């Protein structure tokens, strides 16, 4: 599985031999690959007007392009804000709740993200074909798809350590602009242009997987909530800045240098301490060597209560249940 940003085809349908060669080396003679473009066909075509575009069939003959539009940017942030508002609205009656939930579109985004990741996984696992994933910038929906596909495909990404490695690789080092995307969150009135909850959407999808495959992830909901918290505000430097360059060298000459590695502590170091680590483990975990294929039917996708109702409803009874599960498993 490969990821990139969009090719700069532009209105004049530019070609780039090196790019074609690079993609050519991935496939053998006669082999077929899939390009999953996370923009709609129309959006991708329109991108040509501003210098972007798609890979033309003639130049990349072995690659079959599939469009799976995923929401990003402002509309996704709006979806998030509306959902949080709906969850906090005590005046909604039961006969309006579901349509209100629907109008936020958040669950539709979860469904779309999971479906696309499953598609990528299916290409690799069932069709045994290579996959290239990109959207426009390659920093948002692209990473959502590649990271989620790996959780689905690869059992090592479902271990506590493996999941952290996945986050490091596919989100942090891959350059998801955390600083811009996870700025003020859902309550803020400042509607920042660059803010968008892609990372939260990813965590939500992982939560859906944990619900559908309760034994297959080594970590539990608590880890996901902790990651959500730390992406927005953290005592650790792991989610600081927007990419590796900023973390190491700073943004421009003259701006303060972050030197993240030298001046902050790593979230992973803290999480992995024996005393801490056990809080994040899933007591039901049993290594599952298989690919986990989630159901993306609407009945199978649920609202992540642990996150969206975290401060609204008591988790006492669910906590008791988990404590009992822990006790039963440990007693054995």
């Amino acid at each position, binding site marked *: 599985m490969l990821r990139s940003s969009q090719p700069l085809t532009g209105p004049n349908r530019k070609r780039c031999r090196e790019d074609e060669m690079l993609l050519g080396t991935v496939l053998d003679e006669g082999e077929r690959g899939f390009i999953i473009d996370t923009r709609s066909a129309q959006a991708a075509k329109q991108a040509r007007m501003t210098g972007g575009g798609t890979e033309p069939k003639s130049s990349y003959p072995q690659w079959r392009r599939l469009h799976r539009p995923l929401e990003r940017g402002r509309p996704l942030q709006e979806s998030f804000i509306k959902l949080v508002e709906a969850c906090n609205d005590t005046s909604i009656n039961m006969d309006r709740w579901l349509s209100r939930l629907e109008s936020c579109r958040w669950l539709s985004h979860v469904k779309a993200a999971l479906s696309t990741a499953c598609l990528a996984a299916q290409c690799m696992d069932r069709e045994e074909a290579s996959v290239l994933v990109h959207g426009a910038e390659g920093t948002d929906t692209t990473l959502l798809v590649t990271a989620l596909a790996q959780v689905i495909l690869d059992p090592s990404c479902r271990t506590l350590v493996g999941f952290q490695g996945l986050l490091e690789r596919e989100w942090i080092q891959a350059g998801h602009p955390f600083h811009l995307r996870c700025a003020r969150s859902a309550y803020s009135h400042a509607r920042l242009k660059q803010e968008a909850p892609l990372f939260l959407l990813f965590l939500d999808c992982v939560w859906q997987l944990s619900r559908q495959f309760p034994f297959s992830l080594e970590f539990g909901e608590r880890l996901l909530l902790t990651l959500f918290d730390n992406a927005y505000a953290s005592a650790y430097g792991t989610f600081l800045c927007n990419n590796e360059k900023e973390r190491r060298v700073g943004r421009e000459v003259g701006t303060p240098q972050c030197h993240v590695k030298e001046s902050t502590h790593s979230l992973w170091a803290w999480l992995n301490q024996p005393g801490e680590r056990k809080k994040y483990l899933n007591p039901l975990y049993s290594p599952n060597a298989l690919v986990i294929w989630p159901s993306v039917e609407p009945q199978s996708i649920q609202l992540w209560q642990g996150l969206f109702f975290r401060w609204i409803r008591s988790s006492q009874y669910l906590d008791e*249940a988990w404590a009992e599960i822990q006790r039963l498993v440990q007693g054995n």
Partner: protein
Amino acid sequence: VENVRLLDRLSSRKAALGTLYLTATHVIFVENVSETRKETWVLHSQISSIEKQATTATGCPLLIRCKNFQVIQLVIPQERDCHDVYISLIRLARPVKYEELYCFSFNPKLDKEEREQGWKLVDLNEEYNRMGIPNNYWQISDVNRDYGVCDSYPTEVYVPKSATAHIIVGSSKFRSRRRFPALSYYCKDNNASICRSSQPLSGFSARCLEDEQMLQAIRKANPGSDFIYVVDTRPKLNAMANRAAGKGYENEDNYSNIKFQFIGIENIHVMRNSLQKMLEVCELKSPSMSDFLWGLENSGWLKHIKAIMDAGIFIAKAVAEEGVSVLVHCSDGWDRTAQVCSVASLLLDPYYRTMKGFMVLIEKDWVSFGHKFNHRYGNLDGDPKEISPVIDQFIECVWQLMEQFPCAFEFNERFLIHIQHHIYSCQFGNFLCNSQKERRELKIQERTYSLWAHLWKNRADYLNPLYRSDQSQTQGTLRPQMAPCNFLYKFWSGMYNRFEKGLHPRQSITDYLMAVKEETQQLEEELEALGERLANLQKSQLNDNKVKRKQQDRSKQLGLSTSDNSLANTPQEYSNDLKSFPSRSPSQGDEDDSALILTQDNLKSSDPDLSANSDQESGVEDLSCRSPSGGGCLPSEDSGKDSDEAVFLAV
């Protein structure tokens, strides 16, 4: 009929070819695939509707919808055969006499005494004794001993001590269907009670002294409070409309010391339509999130569930927190009243959250108080307007509570699903007819078997591993969060999409934890035994100064493999663009179900319709693989089939 195809609902490409059989009690489809010969059994009593669809090039489609929400799509090659099957099923699914029902021919091979014992498992007298009755305030009355006062009530009713026979009879004449106020639940801690009745025949201005005295008697039976609540579970408009027909509700001016309250729960027709709409949503092929949520809201189903729950919560609060007695009624006092009283009792008393207690609850508030099982669930062919998912809604309320309070119930989801199944299956005699009187006339207990005995015998399958009597949830009153709580009501796909394997988590936490518990227990016993042996050995070897290392026989490691690979799941169709992929071989589908059928011997004899259904709920097959102390592990059926999915051998 041969060469019939059974279509998979989610993927029309996956069709099984086989033979269709019609027997006196079941429809059976047997797949041709020689190794497995998977069978699908459907009881005629479960059939809700049959639809003959337009003939296509491939044959004549026949759609069978069941009361337990199974939907079976068959394609029969010849039109004439299809028509024959259709006509036969219509007749078979609409029995005219009770004797046609399965319970009269069902034979679990028990002797007469065992059958009798089965019926005695739930004893309502014992139950009222448990509540603390008879006592200073309440007593049993035999005024209805020959059903002379009310033919839909039981022969034994519990009334306030100060309610004389004269008062009871008088009150019954002032109540719809003669269903006078009688005791449903008594709280001995504070003497508050829940009583139930039907609507008074008050019209606009009629009064009845005895009825007013009856309510006073109820109030006096609770010295801790100087008033009672009267809760009418109908919407105000409906109740008012009833006045024009000479019925209605209690006027606070006429009845001293009552506080009247409407809690609007819609009637049986609204509920029937609501379920219908929800099932239509379930039948949508690959709906979007939007279609689903809109459809679900449009059906109003969860709104109704919440309304019933809220009513139960109100009554439970009145009893537990205010110490005030409540009289509940609707129109006839056998639908909404039953729902609301049983939800309230469940919230109030932890006994009803045990397996036995739940059976008692249903016997008390549904069976004995004359809920019209025959009319509501169509045992016999009758008026379609009487059909309504009343007890289904109650059962769902219980499930919603189980989701909110996972440790509070001794039983699990499967228990609820099986009870619902058997309410419609007519395999047992508990839920036949419309009243105790009718059941006794038909001699049900002498001619059929009790579901409760059957469930009790298999209770290991129905336990909730998280239930512990010392948890905060299991003690005292359950207090569900009031508002905001819309989100707490989830769509019960375990019930309404029960037979769609792809939708459910493939691995059941409940089954796994039960296996863990069982194993822990066995190991503890083993440990104890070894400890004893060790002590004996040490005694007999006083000369040996070496410290013996405890060698535990851990050759059977605790390899509880939860990722049972015969449950390896397959991807659904994620790509709407079917042209993307050439169709993969269908061999990867359904490999799990074959293993299910072959091991379910015990299930097959007692639950023929359940055992061969490839539904994921019974994880018995998993257990046989996991328990190390059990016999050999069932080799994974598909170990040779698919090289992609690695085989995980349980130790």
